[in-house]
């Protein structure tokens, strides 16, 4: 096996030093009744070349662009990723190192994460961001738990327009606690209905997503003003952070915690993971924050350097009283997004976000012109809901056979919305692709 450097002579010599006769003898402390009695039953080992062939075969059955035109976002977005990112991200020094516990040997990772924290805070308009969570769903669940800790209250109001998958992860996290989730319905314009909030007191948090699952931009300012008066924490989730290149960010609208999915910032979709849980808050709450933080300091020569800090919040120090159980996070994904954000820059992200907006507006207009309705009137970013005519499933299947995925059917998540589909257009979809979609739907 090419990963094992030991020659038979090495093994013999090392066994002699240890003072045992065979490799089996090294396991003498394992009681006989704890041992396997048979060999592992696994497929025969493959050579590097056989493995390539095997994986290529498995990949052959996958529907991916450019062969397929996928007008589906819903929390997983196709954006162009510069090849420079792939190149930088494959550097062994980033890929094959671990959590920077020894700062003198990890200044690269530490500075890069400090920069990620800064770019994330700037993108979301917040004061502090952590070094990452697993994904948008677990970030949202941790935000709810953090709000419960800070407010010492037990009820969390969550918009039905938060990604349905995130909501069910939140439900799973809260199941063994005595905290309660209250669902906020939505209005005909595609934004969260806040009318029930006035009757609810003692809320730990109000949780919305913007752009929400229907792609609509929420009126964050209104919610922020309301929650501030009630000492309720305002949690703004997201699944498409590129939107903040064009739209107002959560911090400027009064968010106390902004958290969500960063996959769209330079991370491939990979069937849903690994992605990036982005998590940011205001400084007064920093000691209640989950996850790792990198801070700036100086070395003994007075030179600027970076270390893991405020670790007394974390499980390895505080154990059962930690702010979270997270240890391994998604550092390399955070690094990817920092590389992506710095490649785009302040000017580039505005241009790219505007292009996403304009393209989806173009498709929206074209579908409307073709006679389909756009049921929710609120502004959107790069995805939106369309109501097709009865029996559209047949058309959807026909299009799938023609390698066009005409969005995500919403009925299984929102039974009251038959024939409603969530369509997404990013910069990777051309005008010609969109014209063809409309042509073939008609």
């Amino acid at each position: 096996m090419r990963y094992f450097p030991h020659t038979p002579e090495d093994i013999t010599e090392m066994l002699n030093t240890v003072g045992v006769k065979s490799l089996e003898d090294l396991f003498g402390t394992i009681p006989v009744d704890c041992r396997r009695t048979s060999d592992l039953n696994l497929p025969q080992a493959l050579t590097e070349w056989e493995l390539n062939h095997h994986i290529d075969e498995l990949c052959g059955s996958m529907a991916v662009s450019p062969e397929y035109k996928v007008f589906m976002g819903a929390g997983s977005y196709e954006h162009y990723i510069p090849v420079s990112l792939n190149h930088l991200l494959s550097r062994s020094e980033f890929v094959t190192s671990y959590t920077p516990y020894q700062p003198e040997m990890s200044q690269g990772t530490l500075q890069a994460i400090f920069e990620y924290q800064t770019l994330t805070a700037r993108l979301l308009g917040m004061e502090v961001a952590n070094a990452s969570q697993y994904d948008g769903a677990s970030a949202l669940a941790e935000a709810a738990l953090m709000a419960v800790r800070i407010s010492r209250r037990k009820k969390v109001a969550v918009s039905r327009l938060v990604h349905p998958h995130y909501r069910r992860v939140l439900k799973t996290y809260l199941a063994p606690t005595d905290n309660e989730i209250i669902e906020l319905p939505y209005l005909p314009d595609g934004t969260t209905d806040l009318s029930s909030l006035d009757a609810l007191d003692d809320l730990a948090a109000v949780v919305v997503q913007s752009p929400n699952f229907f792609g609509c931009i929420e009126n964050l300012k209104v919610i922020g003003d309301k929650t501030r008066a009630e000492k309720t924490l305002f949690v703004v989730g997201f699944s498409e952070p590129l939107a903040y290149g064009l739209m107002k960010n959560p911090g400027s609208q009064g968010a106390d915690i902004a958290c969500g999915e960063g996959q769209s910032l330079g991370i491939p979709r990979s069937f849903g993971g690994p992605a990036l849980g982005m998590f940011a808050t205001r400084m007064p709450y920093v000691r209640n924050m989950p996850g790792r933080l990198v801070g700036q300091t100086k070395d003994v020569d007075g030179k600027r350097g970076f270390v893991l800090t405020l670790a007394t919040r974390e499980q390895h120090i505080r154990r059962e009283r930690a702010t979270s159980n997270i240890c391994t996070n998604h550092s390399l994904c955070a690094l990817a997004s920092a590389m992506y954000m710095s490649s785009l820059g302040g000017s580039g992200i505005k241009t790219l976000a505007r292009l996403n907006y304009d393209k989806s507006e173009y498709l929206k207009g074209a579908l409307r012109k073709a006679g389909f309705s756009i049921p929710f009137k609120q502004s959107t970013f790069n995805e939106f809901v369309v109501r097709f005519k009865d029996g559209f499933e047949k058309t959807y299947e026909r299009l799938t056979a023609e390698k066009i995925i005409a969005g995500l059917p919403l009925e299984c998540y929102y039974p009251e919305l038959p024939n409603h589909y969530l369509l997404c257009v990013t910069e990777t979809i051309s005008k010609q692709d969109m014209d063809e979609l409309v042509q073939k739907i008609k």
Partner: protein
Amino acid sequence: MKEFPGTSGLILNEPLLWEKGKKGRCGFSLPRRDVESFPVDENLAGDGPDFPDLSEVDVVRHYTRLSQWNFSVDSGMYPLGSCTMKYNPKTNERQAAQPGFAAAHPMLHPDLSQGILKLMFDLERFLIEITGMDAATLQPAAGAHGELAGMLLFYTYHQSKGAPRSKIIVPDTAHGTNPASAALCGYKPVPIKSNEKGILAPEDVAAVMDEQTAGIMVTNPNTLGLFEENIKKIAEIVHAKGGLVYGDGANMNAVMGITDMGKIGIDVLHLNLHKTFSTPHGGGGPGAGPVCVLKHLEPFLPVPRVILKKGRYLLSENFPESIGTLHAFNGNVGVLVKAYSYIMSLGAENLKKASQLAVLNASYIKTQLKETFKLAYDRPCMHECVFSDELQQAHKVTTLDIVKRLMDYGFHPPTIYFPLVVPGAIMIEPTETESKEDIDLFVQSLKAIAKEAAENPQLLTEAPTKCHRRRLDETMAARKPCLTG
């Protein structure tokens, strides 16, 4: 003697991102505009983030220089105990990067994703076979996430029996994630001490196990690198009171193909694919923390689950007793592909060999260094061994000084000050992918450092001297937090 790898290389300075660049640059090939511009609601439009503008060259140099300030497995031996810093095969990276997997949308109809679903289905089977368990979920994104899944399984299982429980037994050698994960499910951790042999005694478990206790969390081999020899008896005690046994599989790299966790009495076991199954640690993640269970807990596994029906792979939600869902989609699939590739590359025989060589390397280090450093428990070790600074304290040097000096010799330090039961712990896990020559050099450097400690302790207290930065002021970082620039 061979020369030590530690030297100072050509390390260049590099400012923070926003200290370079110039407004108007862009490092991104912006796609061509082929549609007109549409108006944006002024009440919603913002100014965009204040990011620095950089060229592609600026970005490439920036991150290339930063990378050179890092030590990594590909640079040299990285013997972090309990982290299993083994070599990360490059072919795994190739497999996970294939567009068929990397570009796959997670919400397409399963008919359009058969390849990846088959891989996931088969990987579950492999992990079940390797552990001796009955069923698995690949959803948890990391070890601690797997622990949370495990504790939710405990919680839901006891709920289903109509008798929720309030406590859980956690040994003093456990990783901090164990009590933190249990606490998320409302369990109060009841700590128990390991005995004079460094392992758990059945009578200590029996003394605290009662009908209010959900079960026990055991890391086996434990964080002292010792096999919990009484595990079967302990499992019987816990099971007799209606409790469950959680196996923290962080140290599974010691026992692949050797133990049968199901037979041992483990009910739930998590694996760290980024440790045992060679997927890279990425400077702190992403990893993956699949959870394996025995048959009686299978109905509670997270949904959706990959199932095989009439020759088609499907994602099924139809498990009404499930604990729920822990991930937005299907777990860290990109990581799963790498672990699958590792298992396919090694096969049964070499997986067992990996464990044997990992234990051989650790045992060899233990034997070579036990005259130089105080061994916490002088017993046969598994994949790691734990020393302390007890013999060096006379020279007023500590574990921290010893490992900082090791950096100058060109090695990454071991895990230090953990497990907590060994004051000044130095926990060394070489893994199977280190050669005898490199281990010999590592042993020689630690011996040389011990000699320096006696003769010239300043060399240790002032180390490291060859890194990009010398010792950093962690107190200042915590007192006056500067978390953004």
